[in-house]
């Protein structure tokens, strides 16, 4: 196919990707938009104002989402970094089996396991708490951070660490001064991923949070089940914002060759 055809195809694909955002953006700022008008006939800041209204609930829910997302990202990296180091950096027996076990929560929907732990969470007083929600968010995020970081470690040869050790650095110093700075971009990508996965969680929060832990997707879902497209669209755009920001960031920071951000399961970020 010629270059021109490729550009046309790309423009078409871009239009399809952008399509669901067209009604979201229009509705978010619409004042009046009756059927069958193709565009709103009046504009209003009501949708956007709802997002920042004190006592409107959106700010609190956003704060919950941020708090849980950041905690989940930090904990997943802390847990996934050593696992990624073991999987990517060393050869050992039963590695295939361990990788299968780590992959399982990505492949098998976490609905079943979460209903399973629910009773125990109730008994331990973790149900309906932010901490409990944070714990179940680790189920889909830890496999991702572990495997992303395994990919990062498998590309390292360990020669620099050896050189550092030869020059008299302790194992810990070599890790802190040589290994860690080397894998930092990968750690950032893994953390960002974990944050986005947690940010997008709906059903796990619904089950364990039991309606007491209100995050942004909870509000979006109840708005979407109702009949106010203005509020729904404003919430949807706010909910999509971190994903868009992350993408912009990734495009600016990562060089085109780096594919760490390309490691994504189907729609796991939600």
């Amino acid at each position, binding site marked *: 196919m010629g270059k021109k055809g490729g550009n046309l195809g790309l423009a078409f694909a871009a239009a399809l990707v952008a399509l669901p955002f067209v009604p979201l953006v229009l509705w978010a700022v619409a004042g009046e938009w009756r059927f069958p008008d*193709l565009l709103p006939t009046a504009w209003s800041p009501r949708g956007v104002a709802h997002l920042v209204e004190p006592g409107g609930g959106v700010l609190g829910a956003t704060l919950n989402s941020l708090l849980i997302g950041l905690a989940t990202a930090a904990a997943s990296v802390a847990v996934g970094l050593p*696992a990624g180091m073991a999987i990517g950096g060393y050869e050992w027996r039963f590695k295939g089996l361990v990788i299968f076990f780590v992959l399982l929560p990505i492949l098998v929907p976490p609905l079943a396991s979460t209903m399973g732990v629910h009773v125990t969470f109730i008994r331990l007083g973790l149900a309906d708490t932010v901490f409990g929600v944070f714990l179940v968010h680790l189920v889909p995020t830890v496999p991702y951070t572990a495997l992303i970081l395994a990919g990062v470690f498998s590309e390292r040869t360990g020669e620099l660490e050896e050189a550092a050790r030869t020059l008299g650095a302790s194992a810990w110093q070599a890790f802190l001064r040589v290994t860690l700075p080397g894998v930092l971009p990968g750690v950032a990508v893994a953390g960002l991923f974990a944050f986005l996965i947690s940010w997008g969680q709906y059903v796990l929060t619904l089950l364990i949070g039991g309606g007491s832990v209100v995050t942004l997707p909870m509000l979006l879902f109840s708005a979407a089940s109702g009949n106010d497209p203005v509020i729904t669209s404003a919430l949807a755009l706010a909910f999509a914002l971190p994903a868009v920001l992350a993408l912009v960031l*990734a495009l600016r920071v990562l060089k085109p060759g780096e594919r760490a951000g390309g490691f994504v399961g189907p729609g796991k970020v939600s």
Partner: protein
Amino acid sequence: MGGRLKIALLLTPALVVIGVLFAGGLVVAFVQSLGYVPAIGMTDLTLNAYREILSDEDFFDSLVLTLYVSGVSTGVATVLAVVAALALRRSSGRVSAVVFQLPITIPHLVAAVGIALIVGQTGLGARLAALLGLVGEPGDFPALLYDEYSVGIILTYVWKEVPFIALVVLASLRGVASELEDVARTLGAGAWQRFWYVVFPVISPSVVAASLLVFAFTFGAFEVPYLLGKSYPTILPVMAYNEYRDIDLSARPTAMAINVLIALITGAVAALYLRLARNLGRRG
């Protein structure tokens, strides 16, 4: 330092998290599906829940619907992804990166809401149809939400998953396929011949692998059908959730039995995927 001990220590935190919260939860779900729920005084182990759902028409309606939604979504997404990857493989740079990455990153709920506002009876599609004089009022436009054919759900999945499969296809196209294609071209093969005899055999293992992942995901996913699906029949994860939320706690084993079946089916697909992926790794 003992190599094995070091590996074990490095793996422990992740294995504990997944072992307790995921595997532990699955085991509890399985035990509860056998009717063992001491919290509500049920302690006899039976297969009643399985017997009940396997003889239940509602369950089969849900199973058929689930297979239909995930099957059609996966099929449509796969075909479109291969077409898109082939058409766009030479375009690189930021625009195509955004085009492929954005739907993967955007949460499902956002996509579902946006698509609902397009294909709903007062959505952009209906307004456009009204402008063209095809419909007079919203009710004239076909119902594509909460509908029999789950159009809204499928469209959402297709929008989300096409870029994922396309990225996988693009990765395999960048490798050996383009060199082989050049050779075939030199030898005088036409465009269709090049695709069917050269490109397709090279990319098909990764296409199948990616499609399996999408199938497993859409089979077990909850929120899009929960939002855009009709109330009967529901897809299996929504059915399990509804049984789980039932005020009658004796419905709990039923919910768990459905969950166990979902886990078994997606687990089998996952095992298939891993076998394929391993073979791919060996070949590459």
